[in-house]
């Protein structure tokens, strides 16, 4: 058969692992055909080439138009590890573009990816979780993930996976649980997250606290939070990392909305660290700390303690952010309220 190559020795700059890309518009359709070929090597080479091409958004759009996703979906369940790995990588890069995300949701790729959660190859799992994380940023993606009943499996995976993947799972969970917390609560996510609060890695601690925050936005989650987690969160307020502090303060903020939470927070001596956080000018947690103190000030004990510290709040009135000023004003008014 006539080949485009003239001599047997390959030119110096070509990558033998990639399929040669056709010119212009024919590149993607040709790769599409090569993907369907029964030979493993051709498929792998086509996948490698596709992986490079997909970084360009125009190619993503074109790929979707041609219908690449229908060919990529069965490849997810291929027996060869490289094929799976490359397919997940391609899907991840596609998920970074909005068009790609929409198409992935519509084609039900999420449910196909659930099978890959237990994949033996690490990178496949990592890519899968990256895809989930990307999808969770879209509201429709969250809906898709909830439909595929992924939350229990994700929560379960938290216990077993490596740190990097745990971070990804925590990100996914935080976006999903913001929308719908009942499933997460049913699988006992709070207990697992409580353990993670004492993890050695800073990122995992802050992300776990963030997930607890999102759980706390729902009323059912609040009661669970109040029962179990408040002391641990108060402990995290002393953490040296500002991210962790910010997330922990936010979670506390939601937990103290309910009266039981307030009592347990007061019991756990939450006020001094919160005051410290408020006093720092540039902390991210300032706004959340002010809000939490406002909530605690609605209790008579809290009000008594905080009456001595109103000058800290007065300082907050000078903060450049308008939201902080407003919060400080409400805090002062709540503290000074007489029944």
């Amino acid at each position, binding site marked *: 058969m006539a080949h485009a190559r003239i001599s047997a020795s390959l030119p110096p700059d070509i990558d033998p692992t990639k399929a040669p890309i056709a010119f212009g518009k024919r590149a993607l359709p040709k790769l599409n055909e090569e993907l369907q070929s029964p030979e493993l090597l051709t498929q792998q080479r086509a996948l490698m080439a596709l992986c490079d091409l997909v970084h360009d958004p125009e190619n993503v759009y074109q790929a979707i138009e041609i219908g690449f996703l229908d060919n990529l979906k069965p490849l997810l369940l291929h027996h060869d590890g490289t094929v799976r790995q490359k397919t997940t990588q391609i899907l991840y890069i596609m998920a970074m573009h909005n068009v790609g995300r929409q198409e992935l949701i519509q084609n039900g790729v999420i449910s196909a990816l659930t099978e890959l959660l237990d994949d033996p190859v690490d990178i496949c799992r990592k890519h899968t979780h990256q895809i989930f994380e990307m999808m969770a940023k879209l509201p429709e993606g969250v809906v898709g993930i909830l439909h595929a009943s992924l939350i229990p499996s994700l929560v379960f995976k938290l216990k077993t996976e490596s740190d990097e993947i745990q971070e990804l799972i925590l990100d996914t969970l935080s976006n999903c649980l913001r929308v719908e917390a009942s499933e997460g609560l049913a699988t006992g996510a709070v207990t697992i997250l409580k353990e993670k609060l004492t993890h050695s890695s800073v990122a995992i601690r802050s992300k776990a606290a963030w997930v607890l925050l999102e759980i706390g936005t729902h009323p059912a989650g609040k009661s669970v939070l109040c029962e179990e987690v408040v002391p641990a969160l108060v402990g995290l307020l002393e953490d040296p990392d500002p991210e962790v502090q910010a997330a922990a303060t936010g979670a506390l903020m939601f937990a103290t909305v309910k*009266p039981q939470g307030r009592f347990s927070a007061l019991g756990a001596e939450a006020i001094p660290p919160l005051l410290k956080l408020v006093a720092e000018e540039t902390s991210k947690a300032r706004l959340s700390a002010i809000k939490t103190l406002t909530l605690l000030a609605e209790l008579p004990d809290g009000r008594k303690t905080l009456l001595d510290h109103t000058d800290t709040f007065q300082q907050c009135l000078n903060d450049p952010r308008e939201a902080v000023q407003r*919060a400080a004003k409400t805090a002062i008014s709540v503290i000074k309220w007489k029944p």
Partner: protein
Amino acid sequence: MLPARDPEVVAGPAVPYSYCSRPRALPARPKYRATLHAAEPEKEPVRYANLMYDRRVVRGNTYALQVVPVSTQPNPLEIQKQREARRRALARKRAKEQMQPRTPEPVEGREHIHVQTELYLEEISDRVIEVDIECQTDAFLDRPPTPFFIPAKTGKDVATQIEEGELFDFDVEVKPILEVLIGKTVEQALLEVMEEEELAQLWAHQRAYAELRNAELAEVQRLEEQDRRYREEKERRRLQHMQMLQKQKETTEKIAARAFAQRYLADLIPSVFNNLRESGFFYDPIERDIETEFLPWLMTEVEETLERKVLGRTMLDSLICTVVEKRLDAFSRKPLSDQAEAPAEEPRPTDAAPEVAGETDAADQPVAEKEETDQLVAEEQPSRHISFQLEESDQAGTEDLETE
């Protein structure tokens, strides 16, 4: 098309076009011009030309025709234009000549002459030393090989030599290429860095927004919680108040009822006693005794006595009646029989009287009887004679009936 039309258009508006003449056949244009000294009298017959073969008629496409201007007098505007066009052409020519590089003017005392180089150019190099050498080949040497056939030179020989620095200056030329290469690389790198920065900023922005949103959400929930607590408190207080009002109402009712009952019952005992007294529950026993027993007995006794008296009177009446009747009969029948009946009648009332006495009860009645009989006797005699008759007849009848 348009430029050709222009003169027409320009000429047009100046003079409005109008033409009128009688249509006539045009004579043919003679091929040769008539000679000056041609005799006039010979008039050739006028040959009418065929329109189709007339050279004056425009054939073919008239769109791109150069039209002769209407007026033979050249239009001043057109003349000006042509003059200007000529001037411009001249100027262009001059400019072009000037642009062309020329050899500089000859120096004083010299003259430039155009020279055509010789047919064969010689290289200007070091002077070649020429030496004449003769040689004679041996008689019996081999025929030398024929020399290579080098055809005679035709055409011009040209040779060049590129010295260093004549073609291009590497440093100057490489500059733009280098710039492009490095510029593109740096640009790409900057783009990537900027993208990452942008991403990081977007993340920071998102986090800030998320914080704000969470704070607002917490505020909303706090206010909700507060509102709920206040509402519950209000509800409880309201219930309490209602209960209090209820109790108050009950107490006032109770008080009112008690006062009323007291008042009502204040009269109760006297009225009860009054009622009882009126209905005869309190009685003097002796009085009662007298009333219940004695008086009825007295009344019955009195009744009996009276009855007896009445009976006695009736008896007497009947006696008297019978006596009177008998006497009447006796007196009516015969006066003889009167005397016999009269004593018979007298014992009868006396018989009757003890019978009557025997019938009635014992004690004081005989006394009363006697009185009554005395009275009866006294009463009879004066007045009730005749009336008695009827009454006695009736009473006798009734007594008879009673005895029966």
